[in-house]
């Protein structure tokens, strides 16, 4: 096989695994930002917290990997509900700047607290046997964990797509993202809807954090190091758009992987160039509503 084709296949494969991780973490942020216009920089902290919940479950209680991810989803979703009611809700009508500051404050608190409990160094977990090996596709060998991540990513996309497009709750969410006051005036309880989406989105971020341990590594500063990337996925995709977040995650995941493959020292550069280019042409992202302020 020609060498460049082989390189291209590994870039696409690794990029896709990375993209799925980005998607699973960012999609909740996209929906909540589209629904309430809340700039929630603490979303990365939910992912980080999810990662540490997974670590505690596996290393502390000996729960296997897959059930751990499920329990992580539930616990992060439950934790996020009181937080939403007590801290976020009073600021829905505040300016972007207030929301940015409040949520970055939460990020700092989370980093401080987690560092205090777990220490600053990255934890490691023991993966189950079936995710440790390699899968041979005949022409090339791929690590099976990345296959698993891609699989989970596609599963999530299917579930989310089904939930959004084929259920009543999904229709209500879409209506509320499109026009919140109109949705409210026909009797949709947007506040309750929002609690639900917020909890689901945070839970998904938690799962993402758990899956990230073996791909990009987990540390308390995960909450801030990858935050910019999640925000970029959301903004480039367009607030509140499922397919936008998906497309943006794939484009950025592959661009980033390709950049780092071609030019290891300066590869992180490309993703910002792409971001700026997209936003200059489409300030509301790929599929964003026009003039989201």
């Amino acid at each position, binding site marked *: 096989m020609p060498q460049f084709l082989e390189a291209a296949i590994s870039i696409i494969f690794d990029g896709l695994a990375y993209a799925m991780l980005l998607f699973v973490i960012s999609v909740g942020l996209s929906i909540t930002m589209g629904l309430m216009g809340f700039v929630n920089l603490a979303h990365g902290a939910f992912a980080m917290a999810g990662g540490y919940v997974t670590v505690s479950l596996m290393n502390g209680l000996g729960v296997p990997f897959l059930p751990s991810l499920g329990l992580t989803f539930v616990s992060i979703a439950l934790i996020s509900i009181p937080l939403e009611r007590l801290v976020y809700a009073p600021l829905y009508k*505040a*300016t972007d700047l207030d929301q940015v*500051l409040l949520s970055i404050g939460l990020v700092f608190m989370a980093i*401080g*607290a987690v*560092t*205090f409990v777990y220490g600053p160094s990255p934890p490691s977990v023991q993966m189950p046997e079936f995710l440790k090996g390699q899968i041979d596709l005949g022409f090339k060998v791929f690590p099976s964990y990345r296959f698993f991540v891609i699989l989970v990513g596609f599963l999530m996309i299917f579930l989310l797509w089904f939930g959004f497009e084929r259920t009543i709750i999904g229709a209500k969410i879409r209506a509320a993202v499109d026009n919140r006051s109109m949705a409210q005036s026909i009797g949709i309880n947007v506040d309750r809807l929002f609690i639900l989406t917020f909890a689901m989105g945070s839970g998904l971020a938690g799962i993402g954090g758990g899956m990230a341990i073996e791909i990009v590594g987990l540390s308390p500063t995960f909450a801030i190091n990858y935050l*910019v990337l999640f*925000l970029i996925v959301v903004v480039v995709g367009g*607030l509140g758009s499922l397919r936008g977040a998906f497309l943006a995650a794939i484009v950025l995941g592959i661009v980033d992987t390709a950049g780092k493959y071609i030019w290891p020292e300066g590869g992180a550069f490309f993703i910002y160039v792409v971001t700026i280019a997209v936003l200059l042409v489409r300030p509301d992202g790929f599929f964003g509503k026009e003039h989201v302020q």
Partner: protein
Amino acid sequence: MTMSEVQPPSLPTNSPKVSPTQYMHDRVRWRLSEALPWIVAVGAFWVFPNYLVLGTQMIIMIIFALSLDLILGYAGIVSLGHAAYFGVGAYTTGILSAHFGWNEPLSGLLMGGMVAGVFGFASGWLLLRYHGLALIMLTLATSIMLYEFANVAEVWTGGFDGLLGITIDPIFGIFESDLWGKTYYWYSLFVLFLVFLAVRRIVYSAFGRGLVGIRENTKRMHAIGSPVHQRLVTIYVISTIIAGFAGALFAQSTAYVTLDVLSFSRSGTVVIVLILGGVGRLYGAFIGSIIYMIIEDELSRISPEFWEFGLGLVLVLVVMFFRRGLLGAAEDAMKRIRGASS
């Protein structure tokens, strides 16, 4: 919710016929209390002779925060990438010295500000057409891109290891840099004073009022024919020049520049400092910088986790309860006391 307003001396209620010209004059006039920060700064030189290095860093932070206050507090431009210009200023001065032997401090400082201003003009002209979240993300991405660029351009910036070999000549050829930071304390304080005079002049000018108008209602400013984009770019360039000065001073006073000058955390810090002190009120930058750096110094001595947690808690509390910053909270408290006594 609008941002806190510049507090003019309140119109005397017993004489409603004060003329508008007189009112504008009264706003600009220096009040006696405005001498206080300068008295404190000069006094601190003798009271805390062992903390002059920290004091110099405080002054640099105040200059940086003032530059942000111009765009955030007065023109309402939310930027999460202001460290870009601080960093450009720092690297300009540093590279001029380390690679070209340009060690004269005053011209080095000016060059830092000018180059930052050129960057500010290029990016501001392009980015200030956008609003809200898109603008926040664009400023953020621009600064991180510069960070990555500085990391790659190792030949010039020293990359991750930092730029070494900066030497700065005595100021005016007379005042040598000393171990206790006396010289740089006075030097930075002097620069701060000049910057402050300029900033104060700008915010009380008609141009400054025009910026507040844009912050409060951009559409209406368009409607009355105000050149909105031109004004925003103008104030952005002024702000970035001042940020460049702050960066240049930083490079000169520490004689060492690392990638940290361009980092996201520095952009975040300066926003936090300004919010803590109070946005759009000139002296907020002073109070915010001093309180922030004292808390940072104390808490990180106990442990970095405490510092991080404490900083987060302060931010959450400020946003939820003291939205107008410490100065605003003090003002409210004063009003309440006065209201109760009368």
